[in-house]
């Protein structure tokens, strides 16, 4: 190997930093969509590096569906305080007051109101013209074709048929008023790369990623953690304490846990290589209907 060669991880890091700087240079009102998950932690670290020794020149926006794991919220507040991040939290007040929940309304309707609609409200209120997200192309089939700069029309919708071609690292950020762009600096990262980077950089992540005895119930062959008293249990069902962890984090009633004893990053990677189940398979919302992720993206979901 030539001396002037970067390792793959350093190349990914350089590319992500380039993307952050490019977007901030081209847009007026950037925001980072912070989901508290491990990809968000990595995204924040890359943004910090991109503007070092300055501070991140934009806000973090968290869309709270009001059904997140409690540990996620606790982590969020601590992480943002420690890192000196400017956090804005938004939730769909109308939806919350109407008592929208995943049990009575189904995952699809609930996700639409408490996540997609909430996100659209917040982006509109903030007049953000660019929103950074932590999505990766390796997560799901329809995301393999997502652009790094992904154009959204006035209604925040994504049209897979009408994407702008993306060449070299020359990103086209031209939009009309009311339109916006989602930018995905982690597009070319894989799940393994993300773990690798967390390990290398010692990046704090929510403890739910690590195995621990937690109260869970089994529902449609998915292990769901009983995070608070709002969880509806089927008659006669009682939560059992099992050693589990989460590969992705979202709303606790919609996020499946996996049985595991992996308590460190190294153990998680080892388990990942052994079990060979793709990451999003624990997300219930991806599976409601064929092409479901693609549908949600068209509607404005991340």
């Amino acid at each position, binding site marked *: *190997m*030539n001396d*002037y*060669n*970067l*390792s*793959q*991880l*350093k*190349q990914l890091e*350089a*590319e992500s*930093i*380039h993307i952050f*700087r*490019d977007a*901030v*240079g081209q847009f007026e009102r950037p925001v980072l969509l912070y989901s508290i998950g491990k990809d968000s932690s990595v995204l924040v670290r890359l943004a*910090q*590096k*991109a*503007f*070092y*020794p*300055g*501070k991140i020149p934009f806000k973090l926006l968290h869309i709270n569906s009001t059904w997140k794991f409690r540990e996620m919220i606790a982590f969020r507040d601590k992480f943002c305080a420690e890192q000196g991040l400017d956090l804005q939290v938004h939730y769909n007040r109308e939806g919350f007051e109407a008592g929208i929940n995943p049990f009575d309304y189904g995952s699809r309707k609930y996700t639409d109101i408490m996540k997609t609609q909430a996100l659209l409200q917040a982006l509109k209120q903030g007049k953000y013209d660019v929103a950074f997200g932590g999505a990766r*192309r*390796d997560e799901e*089939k*329809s995301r*393999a*074709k997502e652009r790094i700069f992904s154009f959204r029309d006035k209604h925040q919708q994504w049209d*897979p*048929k009408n994407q*702008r*071609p*993306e*060449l*070299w*690292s*020359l990103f*086209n950020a*031209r*939009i*009309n008023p009311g339109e916006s762009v989602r930018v995905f600096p982690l597009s*070319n990262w*894989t799940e*393994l790369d993300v773990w*690798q980077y967390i*390990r290398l950089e010692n990046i704090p992540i929510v403890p739910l990623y690590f195995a621990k005895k937690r109260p869970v119930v089994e529902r449609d062959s998915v292990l769901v953690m009983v995070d608070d008293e709002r969880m509806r249990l089927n008659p006669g069902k009682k939560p059992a304490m099992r050693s589990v962890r989460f590969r992705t984090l979202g709303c606790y009633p919609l996020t499946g846990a996996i049985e595991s004893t992996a308590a460190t990053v*190294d153990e998680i*990677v*080892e388990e990942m290589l052994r*079990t*060979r*189940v*793709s990451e999003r*398979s624990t997300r219930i919302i991806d599976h409601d209907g064929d*092409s479901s992720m*693609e549908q949600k993206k068209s509607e404005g979901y991340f």
Partner: protein
Amino acid sequence: MNIDKFLNQHENKDLLRFITCGSVDDGKSTLVGRLLYDSKLIFDDQLNALKKDTEKVGTTKGTGEIDYALLLDGLKAEREQGITIDVAYRYFATPKRKFIIADTPGHEQYTRNMATGASTANLAVILIDARLGVSTQTRRHAFIVSLLGIKHVIVAINKMDLRDYSQEVFRDIKSEFDAFIAKLDISDVRYIPLSALKGDNVVTLSEQTPWYDGDPLLETLEEIDVVGDRNFNDFRFPIQYVIRPDLNFRGFAGSVASGIVRVGDKIKVLPSLKESTVKRIVIADGDLNEAFPPQAITLVLNDEIDVSAGDMIVHANNPPKIESRLDAMVVWMDEKPLRRGSDYIIRQAGRNVKARVDNLVYGIEVNTLHKGDADALALNEIGRVALNATKPLYFDPYSNNRGSGAFILIDPISNTTAAAGMILAGIAPGTHERHDSREERLRDHIGKREFSWDTGHVSGRERLLRNRHYGKTVLVTGEDCIAAAAVAKKLEQKLFQLNMNSYYLGVSNIAEGLDADIKRGFHDRDEHVRRLGELGRIMSDAGLIFITALSDADDYDLDCIRQLNYPNDLLVIRLGPGNGEADIELEAEADIDAHISTVFRQLSERQIIPDYCI
């Protein structure tokens, strides 16, 4: 498994980005699916879904084989049509390397997607169906690959199982493709016989092809060195953002597009031309002593000079070209066609500048590489344009520097990305006027040349009387340039024996001489043709019958040579099929003596060679 070791290894791996290109049915998705599958990147749940899908809609339904293509076709519309219609990116890794595949569609209409995938790739895998051989689309793929500056090509001759793993089939396809690719500037071409479906020579060497002495595909992908493709000579640093957290720090953030920068280097800022030296190279992990592409860094300078986003920092003694008029190739990507006089925004080296299309010099028929006059470029068409930007751009020719030679054109009204562009050169002020067509330019040039043409004391008439024949340029062309050269040489000899002053000029004689300053690539063919035309003018003026060969000349080339050769005659002999209009056409199959007698018969029938000469 030692996980610590595994992780360290993965972290420090090298990265290779490549594209796969093939026609609709030549098994590209199967090949990519096979690479992912064999490198164990398909997860169990995906595999189960895949098996289910195969039974539902797969093309291998009922055969027990998995339809890998279903794994890759992400979007609903594509699944319905059964064609991949956009660029999809896939990731896999081996213990040696991490790979990013831009999976691009083979469908005829989608040149733009291929160009998109190729723009970030270091290597291309071109699939050829062993049953069909080199197709029109294969040629198109190879051309786009060379246009986008990819230096390494692996030609995967697929479906060898359906041709009994025949070495002869492999050899024939190889030599046909070799002949075509010789016209393009691709330095590293390798051929692998394989069957993606059966897995032959994909990951391991196949027992079915004992005659194949190369490596299997995956190993080839792991071994090819691409770091050397980067430009480490010319430091180009487009500023993306100025970092100024407090009064004590002012840094210029960006990515090193090319070249190497070190602390203490003397630099210059464009466009202000102010000079300074590098004080610090800052990254969040600690300061560096030097930085190289594609590192993302922040430069701190020793002097307080005015620098803003969009400026470029370069070494003081090595500036890029600074011009507002560009000669460039474009791949058109918009439904709305390109026309002369249209306005666009050019985005190049991280900066947006307004630009007008001054001229559409020619369009290229990508299947044959023939150039032709064009009024417009439609979606998926490729052409050469002259652009006029409202401000000077800082650039290098794309062939030297991908980072500073690439651009996109953005439609200012719809905001879509209308074109991918590769800069060939700048156009010096006053070279030619706006909206000039190629003919006008050529006519203008020839007018000036003839006006200043100086002759000695021997007149053309005196020469004619002594030589007993006119000076003339004879061009032998054909797809098979070796055969064309053989005819040219024989003709020279025969004419010489008839006491005529004939002279044969071999192509390689100028390649290493007169043409030593230009490359062998596609763009430089124009310049080669121009020089042949000018040479023809001089040699025929000297009274010679100047004979040379040019591979596969089209009307565009011939017209160019004919005009440059003015006022003397050009005679075109074509061997075998082809596009350009020829004076004498020869059947490719006949032998060389038959060719020569046909030429002489035709020449005398047309009274080009009068009887007294023979």
